[in-house]
């Protein structure tokens, strides 16, 4: 049943995407580990980790596209779920440091020793176990999304109002995590990681494995999202996006459907954050910054909203451009470029890169083709 659910509605675009992710997930670690450093085919560990970061963002973008592109919920706080997943992973990595920290305390992370804390707060319990931490990566963002969504969707908060409260949610978390007495390392966050399941986080082999895992999770996230939007539930969700009250009069409990996709999406964002942290080496409260969540919306819009593949593409393209831009003379102008990109895409490519390319392709193949389905404009 699960196989049918995941694969029965897969389209050609999805197959191409999966094949591409699989190819990258295999080729890049091999090119890093097996090809000698002098060869033009060698991929450096730094480059691999950089692209690993892009792929984490791609998974985050897919999770946002699931709620925004298909269900019309413009979440401006998805970075919060990403960061919470990241913190869960960060807490596990902190506990793995053991007595190798600066203060050499076998139980307490350095920042707690520094703050004169005597014992581990209860919410850090269990994080030395990898399975427990991975469960929390899913559970913490999922639970927050569930509780938040429960109240918001039942009270029928929609449109701009919902966007604003999601933004407030991530901002509130930003402020909370900045506080030292929250017990999450304050504004320095969690860093100086040593091991992940017994392997050195900095080691080339570990980095390659993390990259391959990211590709696997990206593919899995895509399959789940694709399975959802291809099912009848996906049709209901699109119906909610386009005519919410009509869907209600058909007898669907709109709030429950929204809650389902929102929660699944938050779990997915949490996984993306968890993979991001060991590859970047740090997690701090700035990940909760509202601007991060807004950037994610831009990636999805640039790539093509309501296509899943486009969201992933947008995340990689925009972040690659960001790296190019911010590491040179152009660095001060990146935010202007990002803003301009958003305006230009909205004006000239409302369907994003993927939608526009697909439009050209279909026109070339059959000139009188019926226009492809596209999401209604955001509320």
């Amino acid at each position: 049943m699960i196989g049918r659910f995941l694969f029965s509605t897969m389209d050609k675009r999805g197959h191409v995407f999966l094949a591409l992710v699989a190819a990258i997930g295999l080729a890049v670690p091999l090119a890093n580990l097996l090809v000698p450093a002098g060869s033009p085919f060698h991929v450096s560990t730094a480059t691999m980790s950089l692209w690993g970061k892009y792929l984490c963002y791609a998974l985050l973008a897919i999770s946002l596209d699931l709620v925004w592109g298909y269900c019309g919920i413009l979440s401006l706080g998805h970075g919060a779920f990403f960061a919470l997943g990241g913190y869960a992973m960060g807490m596990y990595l902190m506990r793995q440091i053991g007595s190798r920290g600066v203060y050499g305390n076998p139980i307490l992370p350095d920042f707690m020793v520094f703050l004169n804390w005597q014992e581990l707060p209860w919410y850090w319990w269990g994080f030395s176990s990898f399975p427990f931490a991975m469960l929390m990566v899913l559970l913490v963002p999922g639970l927050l999304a569930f509780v938040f969504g429960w109240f918001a969707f039942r009270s029928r908060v929609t449109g701009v109002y919902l966007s604003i409260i999601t933004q407030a949610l991530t901002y509130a978390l930003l402020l909370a995590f900045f506080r030292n007495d929250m017990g999450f390392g304050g504004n320095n966050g969690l860093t100086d990681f040593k091991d992940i399941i017994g392997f050195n986080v900095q080691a080339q082999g570990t980095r390659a494995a993390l990259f391959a895992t990211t590709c696997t999770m990206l593919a899995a996230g895509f399959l789940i999202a694709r399975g959802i939007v291809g099912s009848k539930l996906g049709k209901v969700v699109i119906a909610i996006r386009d005519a919410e009250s009509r869907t209600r009069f058909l007898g669907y409990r709109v709030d429950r459907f929204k809650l389902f996709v929102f929660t699944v999406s938050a779990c997915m964002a949490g996984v993306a954050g968890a993979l991001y942290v060991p590859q970047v080496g740090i997690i701090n409260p700035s990940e909760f910054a509202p601007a991060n969540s807004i950037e994610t919306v831009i990636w999805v819009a640039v790539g093509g909203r309501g296509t899943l593949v486009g969201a992933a593409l947008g995340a990689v393209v925009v972040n690659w451009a960001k790296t190019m831009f911010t590491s040179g003379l152009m660095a001060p102008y990146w935010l202007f470029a990002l803003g301009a990109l958003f305006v230009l895409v909205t004006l000239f490519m409302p369907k994003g890169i993927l939608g526009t390319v697909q439009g050209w392709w279909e026109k070339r193949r059959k000139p009188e083709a019926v226009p492809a389905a596209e999401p209604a404009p955001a509320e």
Partner: protein
Amino acid sequence: MNAPVPGALTSSLLYLDGVSVSFDGFKAIRGLSLTIEPGEMRAIIGPNGAGKTTMMDIITGKTRPDEGTVMFAGSVDLTRLDEAAIANLGIGRKFQKPTVFDFHSIEDNILLALKSKRSVLKTLFWQTQAAQQKRIDEILGIIKLADKRDRLAGSLSHGQKQWLEIGMLLAQDPRLLLVDEPAAGMTDGETAQTAALLKAIARDHSVIVVEHDMGFIRELGVKVTVLHEGAVLAEGPLDQVSANERVVEVYLGR
């Protein structure tokens, strides 16, 4: 199915008594009483602002009345339920402005409306059974859209959208259909076909039709209720009602 439920307070399918609702002090409905018998088709007419749409909002759970009784199938108090629960009880609604799902194919529109379990898990792992597919095909035939089944609903003409919406109502298989201005914006030919379609539906469903078009009402040939300022002004066959002096006054503004 239409037999009175044991313990029912009334044998009517729909029973409204003394219903009132006001918005910011404006009384949209004042003391409205109305009963619909099982299997009955009823036309509701009235000038703009008479409370026709508000009445539908109350029956379908969109608006809560300030006072009064709204009972369905004898014993179900509709004022305590929300839209989805009322829809699942078997009350279907077609809106004045055709609202179909523009980015779904015509077939998917019918599939979404098709009577079935509406839970999240049931829809996630949904598989259309042969009998359900047959019913979808049947409905597509009735509303004359079978050859366009794969087209997006957004590409349909206004009249076709109205039919698609009637088809969606059929797919829901409700016990009571509320149809708001089905002939609005239709050509004369389309209007006649729509009247025939509704008459066919009324053979095994209870139907309430709200309409402005007198020709259309005449075509339906059913009992008429005239609403005015949120209450019933007159009730009876069209000829009798249109001879009523008060009705003429209200409509012509004398």
